[in-house]
């Protein structure tokens, strides 16, 4: 056993420890890669929407002049502010204050649920459906696909809330919460683009 081998084994023990401890780092990297890839689905829907809107001869179905923007704007404000609320929740968890985390996470979930409720009310009141030409189809596709993501986010938050009641669950890092929060920000940003595309650009 030479000195060199001893040194290299020491280095490598170091590295191994580093690699094993960095599993959360890998997960976070992988999750961001996944979100970037996921955003391409939305991007392709957005591009599809823009192409449909600019090339379809009769965009709105007969009897439809445009979309109501007031309630969706309230919805937007609620959803976008919930991004700040979940950030606060994450800070509380970072400081090991579990109850603060739980309360703010619950608030995020309620705001997300309010958004979905508002979306459902809007859908019910619309004078067209998903079969009403390219406009109806793309409108329901975009809002519906985004709504599914909001629902997924709420389910993830519920899981994270539940896990906070397992003693010591978040003592050694909380990648799950970080991922949930990242996902929620992602859903928000998508909604802002979507709102501009569908409601502002009429």
């Amino acid at each position: 056993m030479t000195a060199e081998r001893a040194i290299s084994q020491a280095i490598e023990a170091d590295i191994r420890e580093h690699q094993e401890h960095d599993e959360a780092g890998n997960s976070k990297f992988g999750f961001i890669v996944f979100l970037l890839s996921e955003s391409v689905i939305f991007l392709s829907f957005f591009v599809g929407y823009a192409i449909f809107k600019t090339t379809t001869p009769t965009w709105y179905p007969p009897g439809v002049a445009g979309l109501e923007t007031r309630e969706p704007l309230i919805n937007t404000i609620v959803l976008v502010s919930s991004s700040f609320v979940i950030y606060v929740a994450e800070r509380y968890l970072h400081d090991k204050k579990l109850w603060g985390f739980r309360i703010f996470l619950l608030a995020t979930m309620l705001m997300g649920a309010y958004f979905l409720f508002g979306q459902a009310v809007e859908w019910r009141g619309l004078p067209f459906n998903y079969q009403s030409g390219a406009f109806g189809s793309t409108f329901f596709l975009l809002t519906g696909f985004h709504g599914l993501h909001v629902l997924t986010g709420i389910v993830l938050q519920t899981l994270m809330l539940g896990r906070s009641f397992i003693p010591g669950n978040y003592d050694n890092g909380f990648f799950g919460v970080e991922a949930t929060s990242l996902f929620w920000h992602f859903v928000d940003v998508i909604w802002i683009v979507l709102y501009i595309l569908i409601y502002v650009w009429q």
Partner: protein
Amino acid sequence: MANISIEAPEVVRGQPYPGAPDNWKRFFTFSTDHKVIGIQYIVTSFFFFLIGGLFAMIMRGELITPEADLVDRTVYNALFTMHGSVMLFFWTFPVLVGLGNYLVPLMIGARDMAFPRLNAVSFWMIPVAGILMMSSFLVPGGPSQSGWWAYPPVSLQNPTGNLINGQVLWILSVAISGVSSIMGAVNFVTTIFRMRAPGMTWFRTPAFVWAVLGAQLIQLYGLPALTGGAIMLLLDLTIGTSFFAPERGGNPVLYQHFFWFYSHPAVYVMVLPVFGIFSEVLPVHARKPLFGYRVIAASSLVITVISSAVWVHHMFASATPGWMRMFFMVTTMLVAIPSGIKVFGWVATVWGGKIRFTTPMLFALGGISNWLFAGITGIFLGSVPIDLHVHNTYFVVGHFHYVLYGAIVMGIYAGIYHWFPKMTGRMYYEGLGKLHFALTYIGTALIFLPMHPLGLMGMPRRVASYDPEFAYWNVVASIGGFLLGLSTLPFILNMVSAWIRGEKAGNNPWRAYGLEWLTSSPPSVENYEATPVVVSGPYGYGKNEPLVANTPNPGLTEFPESFTQKPTS
């Protein structure tokens, strides 16, 4: 020396660990070992290769006479649809993911992929999706008949009126394989970015790993677009939305954009790892460093970028505006440059080398020659005036089969033969391998070369019957097709018998230079007993410089001296 190479693996096997190399049952379990998953991918996809090949041979049997006499026309439509879908989604993609899965962690000195469980889930989705696609033979109306690209409005016709029809099953199956690919891509990219061994900088990373990275990045940016298009197609087909149905105010050409935005780069998803295999196999069997390694490595990522903006060359005949035709013609020509750089590098690698004509080397050289030919007809097709003439003819079929069979399948064979001793610890039979190569190379030329004159004469693709003036070349092509079918027999015989009772190969039968050859054959569960510390770049043939600073597997002693740094004290 020979004694040691037989003894050495026994030392490693003496240690009890779950799923020792002799334990074949682990291939039927939810294993999270990247090596088991890699072999699972390769073997499973080879079964689908045989199924897709059977479809192809029935089609060639049909085309041996000008009349539609062997199978019904609708059956013929279903056959070419299933042939294309199975060959792409269940053979070429998964087998290359399998090779990548097996080799990438070994080549970068990692113990496994970044997310082993995700890896296993990605694999098990492949047989599920494949069986789902096969099950479309059992539903009323049979499988999809709209080709592997499923263009609306053809793909939106539902003559049986059932909710579960061949087209719906096709979309679901492709969607499952897409989810599997995305998960695999996240795994590969994370592994390659974050788990390279200490000292393995980007320009010490083997060209194969670069190529896999380039391919998987394409999956990440391209596949979601196809997923988006497939969701819209599925909704059109099942609940009557109007995205692509022209009679309901939809835009069928938009689907073509969604489809080709992914499916053209998908060609590079398949061909880039094969480029990587060429770059690994040639230096070993020519005993020379890879010529222009840095440029070859970086050109993989250049291809990744440029291939994102070439897709409209599939749609020159789809009422595409003139400016778009011009733009995409230029980008298509551009993407030939990095591919040409690679071919140049390979030729220069072989030039003046001490070439050993082993089976993997033969397949690599044959694959490169076919790739060169396919690249030239690709330039033909990329230029608008020629493409408008030969669009939808057999010229196109000949071109892309030269890419997919001539270059990619031969590259896959090269990779399988080259790393077979590493995967199994045993050597394949060289004679059978050479027979396999001869049959494959001659068969490829016989079947796919005649398709070019046929296309120039104007024979349309996807037809069960044709004008008798095309008969001569079709008979030649059919003979080639059956020859290719025959060529799989020596391969299967070789692989199975060598795996069971081939000669023990030792850990580094090729005297190759690379991290994967620094461990036992087959490697133990965590690949290396100690993490290798890399001190120089790959392909150090003739340079006499060490690759690693430590001995990752202290039990193994038969490596060339130059592999590890000699102790100084």
